[in-house]
């Protein structure tokens, strides 16, 4: 009894080339399979097909734990296969954790009397019994992913699909979830297929690493697997080049008694905070600690306690429009930042208002080529893959060249090669134009030598960190 794919060819409607071409693969029951590959390679498409969220083309075959997907009645599909999505906040129907679990069990027509036991067991398995009555919208991204996993555990699905489930999850929560998954596959014989770009932490756990590229799936040999994983090993995640800020460094943004609250919860206790000009500062901290909220406060999108000054002047006293050109935020969701339809139009807009003397048409062409986007110039932005959108967004924001550019998880969803390119472009432009970059990132591989300062948010306190040994 295995999960198998036979001769799967899939083309999106109105597209010329197939995303998946005659793909075949086998996943034994109780195996833990990791899927990687370049952005736009078709990982999400493959998972959606297995989950039955996209119609299966004729001639292609998928069997789930021995049962053909086509012959499976819709009402029984969830007990065979369940999916955990990349975006934590848009995968719930109900208001609280308990209600969401009930909702899933109602769909499976479980009698009400049997629900409490199943719910308690699932919550206990994932270790989130204390969250039972919490509102889903009040949970951090990592906690939301744990709830989604608990739902799958309660539904007792045999095959579990995960599409970049850790993309916005901090390392600690990631390790937690990963251990839950391994336990599920080993103790309960669930088949797990997980797609990810960031291969950190997997070395001890996975059975197979497969690469999905140009429509084909290749399973790597154990040696090749270890080689791939080595790029993301623990030493690669250390920051050995950061320093504590020097007193001499010029300050660009200054908070006095700066505090942040969300509802009744204090995220950051009032403290003085200096952010330094012409530096590349990395902000880290657990999920839900308030990193994004801090960046939103810096661009006046949320209220805060205390005062914030930019270049010595209170940011509340500055004109909103002018300030937006001095201190700009690259948002987590790429599509929020686009205003037009095609890539070329977006670049034209940034050219119109941005730093034209530096970003000459020649330089922009060169950057597009570096980012592998030359072919995409006239493409509609919203048909690009997630990684490609992220790269266009970055280019557009760099062309605006604000004095301070805040970046909220700019590397999320990018493959390893793209990350290297993006970091080198960021470094060059930052150096040439003497910009200040402040970025949030959960993924640390490749950042050593790039960032100059490391600010950590823990226990409601922001502190600059020394280099790792």
């Amino acid at each position: 009894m295995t999960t198998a794919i036979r001769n799967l060819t899939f083309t999106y409607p109105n597209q010329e080339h197939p995303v998946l071409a005659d793909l075949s693969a086998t996943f034994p029951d109780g195996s833990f399979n990791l899927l990687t590959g370049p952005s736009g390679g078709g990982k999400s498409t493959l998972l959606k097909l297995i989950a039955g969220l996209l119609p299966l083309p004729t001639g292609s075959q998928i069997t789930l734990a021995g049962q053909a997907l086509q012959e499976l009645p819709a009402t029984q599909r969830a007990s065979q296969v369940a999916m955990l999505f990349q975006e934590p906040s848009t995968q719930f129907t109900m208001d609280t954790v308990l209600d969401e679990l009930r909702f899933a069990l109602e769909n499976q027509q479980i009698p009400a009397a049997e629900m409490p036991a199943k719910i308690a067991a699932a919550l206990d398995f994932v270790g989130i019994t204390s969250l039972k009555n919490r509102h889903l919208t009040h949970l951090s991204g990592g906690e939301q992913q744990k709830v989604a996993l608990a739902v799958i555990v309660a539904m007792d699905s045999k095959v579990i699909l995960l599409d970049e489930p850790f993309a916005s999850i901090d390392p600690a929560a990631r390790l937690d979830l990963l251990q839950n998954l391994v336990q599920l596959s080993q103790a309960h014989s669930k088949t797990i297929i997980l797609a990810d770009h960031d291969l950190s932490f997997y070395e001890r756990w996975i059975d197979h690493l497969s690469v999905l590229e140009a429509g084909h799936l290749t399973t790597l040999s154990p040696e090749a697997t270890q080689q791939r994983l080595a790029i993301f090993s623990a030493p690669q995640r250390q920051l050995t080049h950061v320093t504590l800020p020097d007193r001499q460094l010029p300050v660009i943004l200054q908070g006095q008694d700066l505090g942040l609250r969300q509802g009744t919860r204090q995220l950051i206790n009032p403290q003085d905070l200096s952010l330094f000009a012409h530096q590349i500062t990395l902000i880290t901290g657990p999920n839900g600690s308030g990193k994004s909220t801090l960046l939103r406060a810096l661009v006046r999108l949320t209220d805060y306690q205390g005062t914030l000054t930019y270049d010595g002047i209170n940011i509340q006293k500055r004109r909103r429009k002018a300030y937006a050109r001095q201190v700009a935020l690259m948002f987590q969701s790429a599509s929020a930042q686009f205003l037009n339809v095609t890539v070329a139009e977006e670049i034209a807009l940034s050219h119109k208002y941005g730093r034209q003397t530096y970003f000459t048409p020649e330089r922009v062409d060169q950057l597009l080529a570096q980012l592998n986007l030359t072919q995409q110039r006239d493409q509609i932005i919203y048909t690009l893959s997630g990684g490609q959108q992220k790269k266009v967004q970055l280019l557009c924001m760099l062309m605006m060249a604000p004095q301070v550019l805040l970046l909220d998880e700019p590397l999320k969803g990018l493959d390893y090669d793209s990350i290297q390119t993006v970091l080198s472009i960021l470094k060059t432009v930052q150096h040439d134009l003497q910009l200040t970059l402040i970025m949030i990132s959960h993924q640390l591989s490749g950042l050593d030598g790039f960032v100059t300062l490391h600010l950590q948010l823990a226990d409601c306190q922001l502190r600059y960190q020394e280099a790792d040994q």
Partner: protein
Amino acid sequence: MKNWHLRDIILVTILAIFMGVIFWALNPVYTLLAAALAPLGLQPLANEILLGVWVMAGPLAGFIIRIPGAATLGEFLGAVVEMFLGGIWGASTLISGAIQGLGAEIGFAATGYKRFGWGTLALSTLTTTIVTFAWDLLRSGYATYHLNFLLLLFVVRLLSVFFFGGVLTKLIANLLIRAHVLPTTNR
């Protein structure tokens, strides 16, 4: 004819909430406008000027979802949102929401939810204005206004609905069609 699927139902609701939120952000403008016009007894004009924004949810939903009932449902759900946010018309927004939606719906229904061009939009603009105005004649006592003032109110409302529900909706639809998220059957 298309049927309502889960995704359409969620989409129409999210759209309605978005429109409710945008309209809500306009509240200070509305209040200031109303306060400025009130001493002259012209407060309803504030209503008429901004009404177009409020009834936009109907034609937008009709345009995007293209299922019979979409316009009505979009507008009605917008009203539910407004009531939960604590709107100034309370329970009656539910009824006016349904009525405003029906107004837009007639325009789309007249063309069988098949044509999505200027003609349909202009028709939907007109039906929305007439139907909602008739409702205000009853609910807000407009029927007792002098004829001239009543005409003024009607014309302002028609212009507002035409601009927001017609011209602006068409511009938005054009963007959506260019972005390939709406079908191009737009004659």
